[in-house]
Structures are given as structure tokens and as C-alpha cells.
């Protein structure tokens, strides 16, 4: 169906400049020309991006997206195997540790024409969390970790005012969260808070003692939804929103300060078979159309279009209060450093 694809595209809703439009048109034509029209994306989760993929497919007729779920060891192995066998499949990679994969030569330098580095991040987000100094990855948005609670068990007035409150005795037996000893939201948030000095080790231990620590965030969310526990600190926002949408009595809570964010880094894979289509997708992620969908799913565009507003009533990222996001290498270093601490909290 590539024949149907070529022709003039309607790029108006993207809210980009004509030079960028031209660039996108060129990429599109090249993609259709080459016949490599399927963009294979390896990411840890695709759930909240499905809307964006659909919009992309509609905006660029003839191109399709094939989302594959790969993280950690599986991602590493698959990439290695593809490289060694010369049988390349992946076009676009998304991973919090994009720098590490880029370092190993799995990515190709590419800066989307639609990308622009905002000025406000200075001092709040390490620049390399948004744009790779080496030119491999770029982040179209960030996700903000929130807490969640059961609306039947807690009123808004009962909610903790800050992270510190959770260490209090009144929360004993009411908390649940996923173990911070394996990679996941909890590990990221705890590390960010600890390294920024927003909380300390003692706090973490008290919170750990107050809580039932489970193996997966889904299990924690399940307890909250079912009303077994009242409050889940340190969770990923998206899942909570999903559950809420499905009718679960849960709600998201951000604190007034010291929230934690993480950026979503996207890059073009080395030797991508559908290189042009992949580039086009990367460009698309930074457009107004994609940002709107991002807001809807609960994430925060880094460079939010002025015309857009969060349907959840949440502020723009630049106006939100979050602890400084250091370079990913720093985060990793700290995660390793706190590893034993995390494990000891889980094991008690």
C-alpha cells in the first residue's frame, strides 16, 4: 500500500515550521521509495505510546509501527545478536539508559529536525537527560512519579503533605510499594530523592517498616485498588491513571515539592532497516500532535507547545516542582551504591 502513501501530507496539526515540514516530507518520500515502511520500536513498555503510534500511522499513510517490548538483559542480548548476525530488525530504541546502548554502538547519531533544547532546564535537569551530548538520543518528554491512594480509604485531607510524613507512625501498615532492589519506578524515585538529599536513609528504613514491600508495582497497585492498603508512594503515574480509568477507586497525588521525574530517551538504532521511517517517527514525537497525546496519557512534554494544556489539570513540566534530575550516569552510580540498602529494606 505504499502507492497510496506517496503524495502530499497534511502536516498542519504538527505545528512545525515549513523547513521542518519539508524535511519530514523528504523522509517520508524516501521511506515510501525504499519500501521499508515498518518502524520497529524496542522499548520497555508501549502502553501509553499506542495513541502516538496510531496518530503517526494516520499522519503518514503507508507507514506502520511494530512495537516490541524489550528491556534489560533481553534488550541487550537482542541487540548484540542482531549486530553479530547482521540481521537487523530494530529501527528505534527507547530506554532510560539510552546512553549505555549508544555507547555500545547500537545507535546512530541523529537529531530530529523538530527537536529543540529548552532553556529552562538549566539547573533542574541535567542536559544529557534530554539531549545526548554525543548526538544519539533525545527526550521528547518526561514522566513524573507520583503516589497513589485508595479514594475509599483516604480523603484528600488525610493525605501526607510531603515525603517526610510517610515515615510517621500513623502510616504503619498502610503503605505498600514495589521493592526498590530491582529496577523500576521505586528504585528510580528512591535514588533520586536520596541523592538530592530530599530524604535520608533513616527515612527510607522507616517507610520500609511502615510498608508491605511487594515484588512488582502491579501487585502494589492491586492492593491499593482492592483496598488492602491505603497508600502507595513511589509509583509510576501511568498505571494509576489506567486503573482509575478502568474504574478503580484510586487517585494520583503529587507533592508540592520534591517530585521525581525521569526522561524518556529515544534514538535511532544503528543499521536500522527502516531508517527513514524511523527518523520520521522520531521527528513526530516532538510535534504538537504527539505532545497532546503525551499529555493525555499523563506524561510531561519537555518543550510543551504553548497551545497545549494537561487534561489532568497538571502544570507544565517547567512549572512543576521536582528534585533536580542529575545525569543518568550519576543515577546509575547511586543506584548501585544504594543497592545493599534497598535490599536490606526489602528483606526485613
Amino acid at each position: 500500500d505504499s502507492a497510496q502513501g506517496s503524495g502530499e501530507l497534511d502536516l498542519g496539526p504538527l505545528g512545525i515550521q515549513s523547513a521542518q515540514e519539508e524535511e519530514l516530507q523528504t523522509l517520508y518520500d524516501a521511506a515510501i521509495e525504499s519500501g521499508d515502511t515498518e518502524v520497529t520500536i524496542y522499548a520497555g513498555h508501549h502502553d501509553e505510546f499506542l495513541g502516538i503510534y496510531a496518530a503517526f500511522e494516520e499522519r503518514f499513510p503507508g507507514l506502520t509501527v511494530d512495537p516490541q517490548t524489550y528491556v534489560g538483559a533481553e534488550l541487550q542480548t537482542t541487540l548484540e545478536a542482531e549486530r553479530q548476525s547482521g540481521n537487523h530488525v530494530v529501527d528505534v530504541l527507547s530506554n532510560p539508559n539510552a546512553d549505555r546502548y549508544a555507547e555500545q554502538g547500537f545507535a546512530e547519531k541523529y537529531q530530529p529536525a523538530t527537536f529543540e533544547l529548552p532553556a529552562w532546564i538549566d539547573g533542574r535537569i541535567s542536559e544529557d537527560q534530554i539531549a545526548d551530548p554525543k548526538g544519539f538520543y533525545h527526550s521528547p518528554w518526561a514522566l513524573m512519579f507520583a503516589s497513589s491512594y485508595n479514594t475509599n480509604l483516604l480523603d484528600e485531607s488525610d493525605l501526607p503533605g510531603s515525603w517526610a510524613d510517610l515515615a510517621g507512625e500513623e502510616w504503619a501498615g498502610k503503605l505498600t510499594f514495589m521493592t526498590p532492589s530491582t529496577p523500576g519506578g521505586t528504585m528510580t524515585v528512591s535514588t533520586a530523592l536520596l541523592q538530592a538529599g530530599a530524604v535520608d536513609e533513616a527515612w527510607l528504613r522507616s517507610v520500609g517498616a511502615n510498608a508491605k514491600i511487594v515484588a512488582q508495582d502491579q501487585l502494589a497497585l492491586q492492593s491499593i485498588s482492592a483496598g488492602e492498603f491505603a497508600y502507595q508512594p513511589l509509583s509510576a503515574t501511568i498505571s494509576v491513571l489506567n486503573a482509575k480509568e478502568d474504574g478503580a477507586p484510586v487517585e494520583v497525588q503529587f507533592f508540592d515539592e520534591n517530585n521525581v521525574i525521569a526522561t524518556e530517551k529515544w534514538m535511532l538504532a544503528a543499521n536500522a532497516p527502516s531508517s527513514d521511517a524511523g527518523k520520521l517517527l522520531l521527528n513526530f514525537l516532538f510535534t504538537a500532535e504527539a505532545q497532546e497525546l503525551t499529555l493525555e496519557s499523563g506524561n510531561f512534554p519537555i518543550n510543551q507547545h504553548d497551545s497545549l494544556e494537561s487534561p489532568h489539570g497538571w502544570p507544565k513540566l517547567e512549572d512543576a516542582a521536582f528534585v533536580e534530575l542529575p545525569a543518568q550516569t550519576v543515577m546509575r552510580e547511586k543506584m548501585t551504591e544504594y543497592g545493599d540498602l534497598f535490599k536490606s529494606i526489602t528483606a526485613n
Partner: protein
Amino acid sequence: MLKGWRAFTSNPQWVIAIVCFVCFVGPAAMVVQGAFKTQMFGSSGSYTAEMFWEVLRSTDTHSVIIQTVLMGLATIVLSTFFALLFATIYAKTNTVFRQAIPVIMFIVIATPGLFFAIAWGLLGNQNVGLLNQLMTGAFGEAGRIFNMESWWGIVFVSSLRLIALQFFLLLGPFLAMDRSLDEAARLSGAGPVRTFFQIELPIMAPAITGAMILGFVLFLESFDAPQILGVPAGIFVIPTEIYAYLSNSTGPLFAQASSISVLLMVVLMVLVFIQIKVLGRRSFVTIGGKESRALRRDIGPWRWLFSALVLGFAAVTIILPMVQLIRVSLSPFLGASEGFSFDNYEEVLTNRRMVSGYWNTMGTAMLGALLAVLAATAFAWAARFKGGVLSRFIEYSQWLGLAMPGLILALGVLWLFLGLPFLSTFYGTPVLMVFALFVATIPLASRTATAAMAQIPKSLEEAAWVSGASKYRAIWDIIIRLMLPSLVSGWLLCFVVISGVLSIPLLLSTAGADYLSVQIYSRYVEGKAPIAAAAALLLIASFLVVAGIAYLAGRLLALTRPEQRSGKGPGGGTPADLQDPVGPDPTTESAGPAQQLARSR
């Protein structure tokens, strides 16, 4: 030279041994190499024992190993006990509900481990668990005694699935035993219980020890129950340790994970070695082959106890977790207590990737299981074709696949294929995944095939040879026919297990080919547990359909037999009637849901 070549071609063991070498030693060797290599792929990187020693010396590893071994032993003792008990009840008694046992076991195996663990986590939850609610209802707060998130909880849940698996592995030998062996013991003055322990069990020693080793190693790698139930209790075991190494925040530590795998291999080899020593040069064929009829005994009042046991087991393993799972599948979100609907099922059935994943899974599992069972038969046959080193090698190299947890095995296979130039072209084709699934399921298929073959006296095969049947013809006409019930059940087991395998397809499935277990798993991690549960239930339902078809086929086959031997004499109904008419092939009548279902009463 020519002579050597002749000996080579006239002994099929050589070919089989080479196949075994490639399939089992190959990936294992790669994993061993991986434990000592700094770079996971490619020719770069150097060899060092540093990571291996790091793992070996880590006090963490030590405590985890002790923990795991204790837990594994407890699990295996529990599961073997119950597997034997149920196999005995099924094969040897006239307990009323015995026909239900294989069905229960089948469903237990068919339930994905993840959901089994979750369901049990919920059932035995200290606060909201159904079991504890029932208990508090009956005994007040003091009745809140169940806690699945505990040492014994993990042992309990882990053993449930192993019971089912071991049941099928033990059933064949149980049914096949020549009853005169039993009778001779009874006449020597041994009561039924003593006969069971001193004659029947020891004769089945290969099957039992095999099933125990298999169970132990499966426990060492089963990840779901220890992870989901163990983390809240702060219990860490080897499988979770491997997982931790692989999901390390600074990138997967393949060498460390491989090192643990190497340790596992060592443990397995030691176990297998002990098994060889224990079995010695005894034979376990029910020799003579002059007479063999399975004996089903009247156990008097015991059968009410046993019936209760069967019902209890059904409640524990199927009804309770299934209720939980069905509940989840009908929920709008995980943990819901209202708003139930069939939306999730609709979602599954209309989702393109789910549906294509389903068909892919079915196709792969059917073919893979067939391949595994046929190969296992060939291996078992070749191993007994002639004693000696080759035969030992064939027999024991198959265990290697078991020593590697799924992900590590997949890695080993990848390393193997990528390491050999002419094999690397297969990357990206289904070949790799089928190969890995094959290696992973062979130990299971092998247990069934070997146990079944052990019951067939060699003389039956020899009689076919001198009747003019070639070696291969005799395999088909005699061995395969006699093993058929076991093979069908082995196939079903492998089919179900392959359908549920996650780690291998996760890593090796080719792009564009969706795999249901992967789909289910990603739904789960994306927070759509109810949809995942619905998909899992649909999968179980289709297993039951497949088993049902096998059952019907078995019935039809039985009907087309020239003669029905279930007729009773005029004296039917007297105690004599206990001797249940068994199939036409009592020497090897054997395991298998289909076969069991097919035996009507």
C-alpha cells in the same frame, strides 16, 4: 578407516550422540564460556575467572544457596510425596474420584506460573485472603493463620505445580508394573503398604529419582513463586538471584548469571551421578514379560479418605486459584470487587496480536512438543540400544538443558548460533526458538519416554527383529505402539509447557511473530492484569479442548478395537471385580491425561 566407518554407521548411537552433543553440550558449553568472559558477544573481551569467583565467594550467594537448597528439598519432598500418593491412588486403588486426578493435574500444569503465584498470593493474603477470611469466619482472628508470603508458603505453592508434573512422570511406570512382582511380595508376607515401599517404589527408582531431580532443578529455576511470594517476606533464592543479576541497574551481569548457571550444572551433574550410583547395575525392567497385568486393589474404608484427599487437592489447586483467576479476568482492574464483565475477553478475542500470538503459540507448541517427544523416544531407544559410554552420554547430556534457566539457555543458544559462522544465518528465523524450546523441553519429554521404554523388555524388540523387522521398523511397530499412551501424554505435557514458556520466546521469537505468553506477560507489566488473566484462561480452556479431543480420539480408538474386554462375568460385582480391565497393552499402559480420560469407568 573403512571398518571404523562401518561401526559408526551400524551403531545409531553415534548419530544420536552427535545430535546430543550439538543440542545439549553446545549451549551448555557456551554458558560455561560466558561465565568466564568479560565481553558477552563477539571476539573481543578476555577470559577471566573473576566474575565466577566473585559469585562463588559472595556471602550473598552462600546464604541464598543454602536457603534455596533447603527450600528445594522441602518442596521436592512434599511434591514427590503427593505425586506418588496420587499416582498410587490413581493407578492402584478403586477410589471413587480417581478419574478426576489426571484432569486436575493437567489443569494445574496448564495454569501459567505467574497467575498461580498471584492467585495464591491473594488467597493466602494475611489481610484479605479468602482462606484467612474463611478461617476468621470460623475461628475468629486467631484463625488468620495462612501467610503465603512466607518460607512455607513458597514451598507450598512451588510444590503444587511440581506435584502435577511429577504425577504424570510417575504414572506410566506405576501402571506398567508387572503385577506378579507385587503378588510375589504379598505372598512373602509383606502387606500392601510394605509391598509398596519395598517393591514397587524401588522398582520405580529410576522414574522416581528422575522425577525428583527434575523437580529439584525446576524449583531451582522457577521464578514466579519465589519472586512474588518471597520478596514481601524478604526471602531470596537462586532464581531471584539470577534475575537480579540480569536486571542489574548498570546493565545485565551475564557472566555472574552464567556462573550461577554453571553452579546449577555442577549440582545437577552431582545429582545425576548419585542417581547412577544408587541405581547401580540393577535392572528395572519388569523382566520375564511372561505375565503382566496391573492390579487395582480394593482399599476398603481408605478409599473415602483418599476420595476426600482428591477433593481437597482439587479445591486447593484448581477451584481456589481458578476462582481467583476468573475473578481477575472479569474485573475491570486488578483488585476490583465490582463491575465484573466479559469486556476483557472481548478485548483479547478482538486483539489482532493476541489472536495471531495464540495461533503462533499453538503451532509452535504442537510442533515443538512433537519434536521433543519423538527425539526423546529416539534418544531413549538409542541409549538402551547398547550399553557403554555413548549410551551414558546420550542419556545424561539431555539433563544439561535443564540446568540452564530459560533466559540463560536462550543466551547459550544465541551464543552457539552466533558463534558458528554457518549457523548465524539462522538468526531471525524460527529455527533458534524451536531449537531452544527443544533443548528446554527434552528433559521433560525424556522422563516420560525413558520411563515408558524402561518397561518394555528388550526381548519384545528382539522378537520383532527376528521376525524380519528392521531396527527402525521395530521401533515403530513395537516400541512406539507400546509407548503410545506415554508418548501422547508426554506430548501433551510438553505442549502445555511450551505454550507457557516465557523467557525463550521473549528473547528468541522472531520479529513479527507474536507469542501468546509474551503478549500476556507484557499486558501484565503494562498494568492490564485482567486482560492477561482472560487470555491465560482462554489458553487453559483451549488446552482442555485439545485434551478433550485426545480423549475422544482415545475413546474412538478403543471402540475400534476388535474386542472389548471390559465385559464382566456373571459373577460381576463380587470382590473379584476389583481387577479393573486394563488396556490391551498393560506392559506399558501409561501416563497421560488423554489416556487417563479415555479410560472410562
